[in-house]
């Protein structure tokens, strides 16, 4: 299985870079790790007090870019919500059903409850579906640009549909 994947992927890699003119026997391995090099980069540029070049403000935003940062945003948001819940569990005196009834008693109608459910369901759905898309990338599948967009739109559609379905439960 691994051999098959390796053979297939190596074929793909060979065919994708025909313009290499580097002779293998003159390739010199570096003595530093990527982590070391990154640290050196940041140390030097911080020491010289260099400003950062504009990037987010000038580069044209694309759907894959927005989906990527949304994946990160939902991840951080969900993690924060779980941590907040855990801290509340430790700090607040009452029990969970008590607080649930409290919230229920001051809600202003079914639409707000539905909206709240959608608000919880959407980040979970999006992060889950996009997470599966990430795992597909991790096994090497779906990197061609049309595939990236197709899977991206599928994730968005699935997330919206799943969240609406869950909110209506």
């Amino acid at each position: 299985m691994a051999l098959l994947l390796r053979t297939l992927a190596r074929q793909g890699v060979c065919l994708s870079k025909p313009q290499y003119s580097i002779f293998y026997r003159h390739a010199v391995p570096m003595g530093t790790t990527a982590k070391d090099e990154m640290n050196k980069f940041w140390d030097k540029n911080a020491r010289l007090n260099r400003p950062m070049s504009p990037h987010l403000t000038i580069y044209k935003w694309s759907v894959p870019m927005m989906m990527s940062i949304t994946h990160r945003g939902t991840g951080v948001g969900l993690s924060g919500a779980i941590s907040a819940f855990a801290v509340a569990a430790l700090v607040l005196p009452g029990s969970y059903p008590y607080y649930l009834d409290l919230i229920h008693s001051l809600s202003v109608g079914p639409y707000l409850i539905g909206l709240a459910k959608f608000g919880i369901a959407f980040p979970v759905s999006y992060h889950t579906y996009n997470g599966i898309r990430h795992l597909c990338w991790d096994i090497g599948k779906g990197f061609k640009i049309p595939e990236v967009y197709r899977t991206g739109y599928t994730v968005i559609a699935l997330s919206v549909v799943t969240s609406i379905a869950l909110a209506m439960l």
Partner: protein
Amino acid sequence: MTQQLHPGNAGDLGWCIIMAAIVRLSSVCRRGITPLFYQSTLLARPLVVPHKHQEQPHLLTARIHSSQALHAGSGSKAASLHWTAERALSIMLLAMGPVAYFSPGPVMDYSLAAALTLHGHWGIGQVITDYVHGEPKVKLAKAGLFLLSTVTFAGLCYFNYNDVGICKAVALLWSK
């Protein structure tokens, strides 16, 4: 330069011991997959030279990152193992959703607490690596994260033990 074992890696190593069975299973696939991404400059056969470069009198040299397979022992596998463990945990968490729905209870409550906390801890760890630079700031951020994750896990376990538990909590929330 070898990667030293520092507090972050030691903590990850602990989790890796827990994940040892999964890592062993995935190691067969891993060796076949992860070397791919940096072996593109290390093909075992000579590359085809395009016509316009054949007239060059001198040979080009390239400085490349060596793969772990070729320089055994010259680097630590901690980063690679961490990567695999992150994906294994993600897959486990995916499976836990339906299982928790069909078999709610204390086993799923505590499993979810552990898996969610660890997935979040490693995820925020990647965010810190991306945006926080400079050794003292990174150390501070990682320490803060460790504290947050510990409190989160403690709080979730407390909730599972003294209150209704995660599975029941979600069910109750949705029954409103």
